[in-house]
């Protein structure tokens, strides 16, 4: 384990995650002909949340106060298992993609419990929807990852990135393209983006993630929001660096290579954010019971990805 790398990646995660959320918000506004908040507004929001007093519901138990820390820490930990700018990831030995998915599920588990604890109807609604949709998204996510993991013969994310990077890889491999499409749909669902959930509203009929956070305030809210943005960054990184590890610095790379890798990573991240923005702006939110259609499409796409390893080889 490389301690400086770990600390650097931790800092990158903590600092970049809110910025990505902010950039998406800003671009979305621009695309809709609004001025929108500045991209770094999210930092001020988080600082404000941290400074504020907390109001905690009288019905809650210790689980309520415990949940934000689990959400925040599990998201951070997954970030350390995913290669961001260099291979291997700092904690790649501690777990591969299965651990990442497991830890994200751990965070979600406590997030949903935190939603149920204050005895409000909204929290329960959010928890119910979140757990349902994530459950439906899970097979698509796993199958899409399996497509790559089987080729790499490993569930280790760094190994997977290495194998995609190696010479045998072809940019136009249909299996990769299909799996990427499936993963993109899952990304939209998991990060609460528009066809699935609307991150910008507190309207009871449409909200999922926000409903669970309704009773949180102060630093708890800050950790929840920050954890959510870290999770979003982790999923995006997973998508980028496993499917398109272009420019990703290998083991033992020098400072220059690392710099290029960082730039490439940021460029890819911005491109993916742009894609998310376009999807969010051009689509309307789906009815809750139409979301499974979307997710099952993702599942079938992932199955096709797996099949096309046969079809075309």
């Amino acid at each position, binding site marked *: 384990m490389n301690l400086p790398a770990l600390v650097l990646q*931790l800092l990158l995660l903590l600092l970049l995650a809110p910025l990505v959320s902010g950039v998406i918000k800003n671009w979305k506004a621009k695309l809709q002909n609004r001025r929108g908040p500045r991209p770094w507004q999210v930092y001020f929001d988080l600082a404000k949340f*941290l*400074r504020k*007093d*907390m*109001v*905690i*519901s009288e019905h*809650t*138990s210790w*689980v309520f106060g415990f949940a934000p*820390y689990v959400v*925040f*820490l*599990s998201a*951070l*930990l997954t970030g350390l298992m995913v290669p961001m700018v260099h291979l291997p990831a700092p904690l*790649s*030995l*501690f*777990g*591969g993609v*299965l*651990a990442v998915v*497991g*830890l994200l*599920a*751990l965070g979600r*588990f406590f997030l949903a*419990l935190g939603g*149920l604890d*204050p*005895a*409000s*109807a909204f929290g*329960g609604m959010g*928890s*119910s929807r979140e*757990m*349902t*949709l994530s*459950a439906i*998204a899970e*097979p698509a*996510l796993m*199958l899409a990852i*399996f497509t790559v*993991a089987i080729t790499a*013969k*490993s*569930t*280790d994310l760094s190994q997977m990135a290495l194998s995609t990077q190696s010479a045998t890889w072809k940019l136009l491999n249909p299996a990769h393209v299909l799996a990427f499409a499936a993963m993109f749909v899952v990304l939209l669902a998991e990060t609460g983006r528009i066809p699935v959930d609307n991150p910008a509203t507190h309207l009871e009929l449409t909200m999922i993630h926000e409903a669970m956070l*309704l*009773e949180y305030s102060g*630093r708890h809210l*800050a*950790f929840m929001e920050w954890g959510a943005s870290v999770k979003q960054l982790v999923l995006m990184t997973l998508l980028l660096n496993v499917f398109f590890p272009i420019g990703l610095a290998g083991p033992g790379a020098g400072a220059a290579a690392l710099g290029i890798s960082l730039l490439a990573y940021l460029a890819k991240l911005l491109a993916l954010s742009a894609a998310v923005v376009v999807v969010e702006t051009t689509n309307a939110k789906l009815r*809750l*019971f139409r979301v499974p259609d979307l997710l099952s499409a993702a599942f079938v796409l*992932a199955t096709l990805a797996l099949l096309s390893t046969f079809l075309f080889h």
Partner: protein
Amino acid sequence: MNMNDFSATLLTCALGAYVAGIVGALLFQRAEKLANGVGFGLAAAGGVCGIFACASSLATGAATASQSFALFPSLIPYVRFGLRADALGCFFGMVVSLLGVALSIYSLGYVRGYYGHKNAGVLGAFFNLLLLATTLVFLADNAFFFLIAWELMALSAYCLVSFEHEHAETRNAGVLFFIMSHLGTGCLILGFLLLFQASGSYGFEGFHALGDKMPAARRNVVFLLFLIGFGVKAGMVPLHIWLPAAHPVAPSNVSALMSGVLIKTGIYGLARVCFDFLGTPPNWWGVTVLTLGTISAVLGVLYALMEHDLKRLLAYHSIENIGIILMGLGAALMFLHSGHPVLASLALIAGLYHTLNHAVFKALLFLGAGAVLHATHTRNMEDLGGLAKRMRWTTLCFLVGAVAISALPPLNGFVSEWLTYQSLLQGFGTTTSLIRLMFPLSGAMLALTGALAAACFVKAFGVTFLGQPRGDHARQAREVPFPMLLGQGILVAACVFLGLFPTVFLKLFDPLTRQLTGQQLSQQLTMADGLVLSGGPAQGGTVSTPGIALMLLCLLPVPLTLWALFARRAGTRIGPTWDCGQRGLTPQMQYTATGFSKPLRMIFKALFRPRREVQREYDFSPYFTTTLRFESHVEEVFQTRIYRPLRWLVLRASRRLRALQAGSLQAYLIYIFVTLLALLLFAL
């Protein structure tokens, strides 16, 4: 007695303790407290002996097939009351002993609830009998002895299920259990007879690798018979219907034992028959078991989600977990067929490790449900809520169990599912036929199962323990007595230990895989001094649960620093939950268990076929109802589509057959005579 003397003595002590427990509990049944103490105390002592006997036998590598001894002499030919503590038997023996200890200690407190209106002595006696019979099932060396123990186990379980026989629901469940159990036993007897025909003895050593010498067709029949026989006991879909009926109605300590161990006798039997007796399997065996496992896992958890009876919910989860275990076993069979013994060992370890893990966390959860039942006298989640403030320790224990069963890191459920994923993914490379698509697809279904289980336990834990109490019972709940907490505590410790230190435990699997597949994997699966678990020789990936737990702690300074930097002066106020300005949030406004699972009920409505009835009465506008009645049902497809027509057929056939029952002695004698003649002619 040529077995490792220490283990053999301890094992005999354990069995002796159970027998003494039976006798003692019955002797003192007039004095309830004494009966409780003697019965369950001796059971706990027996369990401790059993753990040490089996674990030492596994750890020293003394557990091999040749280690057998006769318990007592037999006068009947072919029948030998022999025990053999081979690795497979010892492993399962360890599982039952471990649960025996925790459950007995728990029972010391739980049975107090029966004082005055139920006979605690009888409960203790049957509990000991069940432990004794189950241990004997795992260690029997002879088909006859095995079947005797098997029936003893079924009988004592029946008596325990029917313990609260004043409820009609309990009696029906008991009868259903009895019928299904005997259906299975019938298949087992036929299977053993076919094996006997090939080997000429009932001893298990004679059955070893017998399948290779049998004609293929007969071998397949034997496999199917055992699959049905053991599948019934394991609760494999579609033979599972007795399980969600019988497990919830038994006393909670017994439910825990049944879900934890009793259904595992089916897994033990399948493992014994498939890996020990029947030789190299054809491919379709593995495919069948893997498919049935996948279906069981998904359907089990889907039905669990629809339940709002806490114990029925847990019972359905047993079906799910049996499915996950069967996925491991099925994959192992497929790998054996394709000649990959190392991978087969990995899949087998995954399945058996999950067997142990499921035993631990399911027992823990049943004990938690028992504690809730003890404190509130209801299993209906819609009446519960807010117990986290009233039963702190039980809440904590149940939460650990919920996290473990949802396969979340870093607890034990995650480790065994991780191993299952690894074996499935690596299995993709074992063949080039289309069958290999099954592996990633079952993996995806395993992912679905895991995520749905998490959803289900958010519901179970959230609705039962969080929020406001929904009824008076829940409002007046108090923490349960200490022995009940201690029993749960032991299992919590086991969950944490099995989750954080799987590599320590994997060493115990070495004799087992050596016996069944000829491989030894613990070295290959262990990295970095046992801190990292590896996916095996083919480099399938690594995971480190201790590392994950440690890093979660090491990252804790990040939020704490932020707290110190920004929020030092921030205060905390307690206020009401936001109620949209309506003044007064009542417990009825919380999400219910039924409401929580509604999205899934709608998404999978093709399976559930939900029906709902709403009756509302109102005065002037339908928006201001005065009374409202709401009913919602979910169809149990297997009940209505398979079992009900089957029962109808059986009843009709028996009505026809009634003509044979003329009531005259002569007629009966003729039947016997004709049968005799037919058999004689057949023998010619």
